[in-house]
């Protein structure tokens, strides 16, 4: 019974933890402009994050080494530092977007301006990192984040027009957007599903929780069941926007528009539940990205790190996170639109993906690290196919962003 509970808990938190501000915004924007025409990207992205996350988790569980330790070992200090700089800055951008997302969600709940919520949100994130244990943090944000299942409820309450959605899915429906815009959002959606911080966090979390080879089955189950269910929620978000906002000719530009279909479908109760779910999901992601800033630097430079230690036992790790949160608050304080920050962060996530993917793919094949737990042949083929995909998305991201003027 206890075992079953642990399995269920792991899967449920994986569903709740899958979505962040990038997924929420990008899926709603895409749904309102393209319907389900880009739903295939969500599927490709979810398969990718499953592959990638379980590989990183296995490497961490078996060898005890997290991502940025491997980056430095395998790429050497020179290339490793370039990788660190790029990954760190993009992660900082994602962190800023997530803190902005918490503030926007709290604004929806209270109608108090989001800029007043930004310092509150950052302080709360820091206090959780400073005082709350890893398990509690993961389980609470994951379970409250499950309220986002409300998007699926709303989707069915709206009475989806399946023939129309299928037409969009099979690319039979015109969406009136240029091919460049279509592909720009394909890359953005891919970057939203496969954000690099998820991998830093997943592999470091495996070390935090002291996983060993015996925990691998549980971790694989969490990933292989939880993430696809999280992906279905992404499709529901896009579907809600496609059903209500697209016919009105509204292109999503704010978080308040993302949740409008929910009020339409389910009224106040569902609206309140979803707003709470958005707070939890962005809060969880803000914790993960903040921890990831500390993880990446500490692992590269060999500092002591980990939430399972007292802050005094990992001083530079904790200082890094405090400074990064302050930088995020400072960026948001300039009044820059958090939704814009989010859209840019998912595109740059796509750019940075190969940087963390490649070292993990290499080490997952190295018997010196993994012994007999190296990638099986089939997984390796899939891993390499995905590497090509990730490389193409990475190279195409910035030109597409420039050509389309960030999707305008």
């Amino acid at each position, binding site marked *: 019974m206890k075992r079953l509970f642990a399995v269920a808990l792991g899967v449920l938190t994986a569903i709740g933890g899958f979505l962040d501000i990038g997924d929420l915004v990008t899926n709603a924007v895409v749904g309102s402009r393209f319907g389900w025409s880009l739903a295939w990207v969500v599927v490709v992205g979810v398969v990718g994050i499953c592959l990638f996350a379980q590989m990183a988790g296995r490497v961490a569980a078996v060898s005890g080494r997290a991502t940025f*330790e491997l980056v*430095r070992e395998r790429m050497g200090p020179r290339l490793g530092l370039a990788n660190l700089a790029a990954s760190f800055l993009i992660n900082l951008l994602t962190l800023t977007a997530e803190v902005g997302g918490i503030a926007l969600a709290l604004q929806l709940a209270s109608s108090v301006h989001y800029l007043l919520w930004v310092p509150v949100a950052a302080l709360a994130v820091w206090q959780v990192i*400073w005082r709350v244990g890893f398990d509690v943090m993961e389980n609470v944000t994951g379970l409250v984040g499950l309220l986002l299942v409300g998007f699926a409820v709303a989707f069915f309450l709206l009475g989806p027009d399946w023939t129309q959605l299928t037409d969009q899915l099979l690319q039979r429906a015109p969406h009136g957007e240029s091919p460049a815009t279509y592909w720009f959002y394909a890359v953005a959606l891919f970057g939203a599903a496969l954000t690099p911080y998820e991998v830093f966090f997943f592999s470091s979390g495996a070390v935090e929780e002291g996983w060993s080879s015996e925990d691998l089955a549980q971790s694989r189950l969490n990933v292989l069941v939880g993430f696809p269910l999280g992906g279905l929620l992404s499709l529901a978000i896009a579907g809600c926007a496609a059903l209500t906002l697209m016919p009105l000719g509204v292109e999503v530009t704010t978080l308040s528009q993302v949740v409008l279909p929910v009020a339409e479908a389910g009224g106040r109760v569902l609206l309140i539940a979803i707003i709470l779910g958005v707070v939890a999901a962005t809060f969880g992601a803000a914790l993960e990205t903040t921890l990831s800033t500390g993880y990446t630097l500490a*692992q590269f430079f060999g500092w002591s790190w980990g939430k399972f230690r007292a*802050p*005094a036992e990992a001083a530079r790790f904790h200082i890094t996170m405090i400074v990064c949160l302050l930088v995020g608050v400072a960026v948001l304080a300039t009044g820059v639109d958090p939704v814009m920050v989010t859209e840019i962060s998912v595109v740059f996530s796509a750019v940075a993906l190969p940087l963390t993917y490649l070292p993990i793919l290499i080490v997952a094949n190295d018997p*010196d690290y993994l012994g007999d737990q190296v990638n099986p042949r089939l997984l390796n083929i899939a891993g390499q196919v995905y590497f090509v995909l990730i490389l193409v998305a990475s190279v195409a991201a910035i030109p597409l962003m420039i050509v389309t003027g960030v999707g305008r």
Partner: protein
Amino acid sequence: MTSHDALSHPPVHIVGQLVDARLSLLDRQVVDVDGRPVGVLDDLELTDVASPLEPGTPPPEVTSLVHGPIVLERIFGGRRPDAHLLRIGWDAVAKLGPAIELAAPASELPTSWVESWLRDRVIVRIPGGRHVPR
């Protein structure tokens, strides 16, 4: 790299395991006896070799692991004052694997002044800084 080095000339019998220092030691994590990260290996110090080299000279031996804030010098060049480097004697090494495991606890090893300064001046002064998050 054991103390019986394979790169020496003339060939000696190798006792123990052959390790490529560049591939398997450099840039590896160094962890203490409890698995706590101590640093990342930046360099190895060897015993001096007489110059000119006489035939039959014994091969140099590794004396200590070197780490500390020198990764930027390794990339961009330049030299740190010797006092900034942190050294761990080779005899403290317990096991070589995905990480270099030491036999001693971190408290008995030299620590970076940045870490201790931040800990003593900032972290422990914030409430809760000494408590493990629960």
